[in-house]
C-alpha cells in the first residue's frame, strides 16, 4: 500500500496553537483611536431638594373705606355698602390641597366689614364673610399652584351707631384643607 507523501514542516511554520496568540499580539498594536471613539467617562450624583413653601401676600399694605353722605338714604338706618377692590392676594403653594382663611384682630368693631375672594386664578372662592376674630374660609380647593385673586372689601354702618373709625389688621393664612 502506498502512503501519501507527508510534507516536512519548516522550522518557521506556525502550528494551530500558535496562530491565536500571534493574532492577539497584532490586534493589540492597533491604535486606540481606531478601535474606540471614547476616551473615558466620569460621573457624580447631584441631588435637588425642594422645601415645603406655602406663602400668601397682599398687594397693598393699607386699604381704606369711607362711608359718607353719598352712601346714606333718608329714613334708612343702614348706610353703604362701600366697596374696595384695589387689593390683590397672591399665593404660592407647593403642598397639595391647601386653603386660605381670613380673620381680623378687631374683636368688637363698630361697623361691619366683609371680604370676598373675586375671580381666583386657581381654586374656589368661598362665600363672602363678615370679618371676625375667628378664621373663616376665603379660598378653598387650591392644589399646588401659584396664583392671584382680587380681594373685595365691603363696609356698611348703621346710622344709629354714629361716627367713628374701625382699624382692622386683616390676616390671610394658608392652611391644610
Amino acid at each position, binding site marked *: 500500500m502506498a502512503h501519501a507523501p507527508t510534507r516536512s514542516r519548516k*522550522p518557521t511554520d*506556525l*502550528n494551530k*496553537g*500558535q496562530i491565536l*496568540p*500571534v493574532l*492577539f*499580539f497584532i*490586534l*493589540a*498594536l492597533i491604535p*486606540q*483611536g481606531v478601535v*474606540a*471613539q*471614547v*476616551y*473615558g*467617562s*466620569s*460621573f*457624580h*450624583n*447631584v*441631588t*435637588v*431638594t*425642594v*422645601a*415645603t*413653601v406655602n*406663602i*400668601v*401676600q397682599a398687594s397693598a399694605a393699607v386699604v381704606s373705606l369711607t362711608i359718607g353722605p353719598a352712601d346714606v338714604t333718608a329714613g334708612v338706618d343702614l348706610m353703604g355698602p362701600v366697596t374696595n377692590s384695589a387689593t390683590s392676594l*397672591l*399665593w*404660592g*403653594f*407647593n*403642598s*397639595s390641597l391647601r386653603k386660605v382663611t381670613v380673620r381680623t384682630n378687631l374683636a368688637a368693631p363698630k361697623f361691619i366689614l366683609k371680604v370676598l375672594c373675586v375671580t381666583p386664578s386657581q381654586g374656589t372662592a368661598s362665600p363672602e364673610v363678615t370679618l371676625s376674630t375667628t378664621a373663616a374660609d376665603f379660598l378653598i380647593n387650591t*392644589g*399646588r*399652584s*401659584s*396664583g*392671584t385673586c382680587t380681594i373685595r372689601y365691603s363696609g356698611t354702618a348703621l346710622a344709629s351707631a354714629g361716627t367713628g373709625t374701625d382699624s382692622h389688621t386683616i390676616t390671610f393664612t394658608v392652611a391644610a384643607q
Partner: protein
Amino acid sequence: MNHRQSMNRLTALFVGAAFLLIVVHSTGTAQVGTIQVRNGDQTLNIVAGTAGGSMTSVVNTTAQLRYWRKAAIAKVTVTTSCPGQSFSLSVVATGVTRGVAAPAVNLVNGMLAVDFITSIPSAGTWTSTTPTLRYTASATFAQGNSAEMGNDVHTVTYTLQVQ
C-alpha cells in the same frame, strides 16, 4: 533545545507581550488622564419662592470637570439618569479655556448624551484643564416639594470622546 521547544517559548513570548500591551493600553484609558469630575457629589436646596410667581432658583459651582489633551480633537458630552424626576436641573461649563462650552444643558431623566464642551484641541503643550460645572436647580409651585415628591437624585455622566 529542539525545534518544538523553541517554538513553544516563542509562543509564550508573544502571548506575554500581547498581554502587556493590552495592560498598557488599558492604563492609558483609565479615569486619570482622560476625564474626571472633581469635588464629589453636590446638593442644591430650593427653600424659598415668590407668591404669585415661582420658587427661587439655586446655583451650585462647587464641582469641576478635569479633562486631558488627547491625540485627536475631542469633545465632552453629558447625560443624566434620575428616575421619577420632579424638578428642573441644568448645567453649563464655565471658565473653559480648551474647547467651546455649549449653552446650558437641561438634564432630563433618560436623555441622550448631548454636547457639553466641543472642539477640544489636540495641538499644543497643555496637559489638562479644569473648568467649573455650574448647576442651576429650579422648580415651580405646581411641581410640589420633596416631602411629597421625594428628592431628585441625578447621576450625571460626562464622557470625553473623539469629536
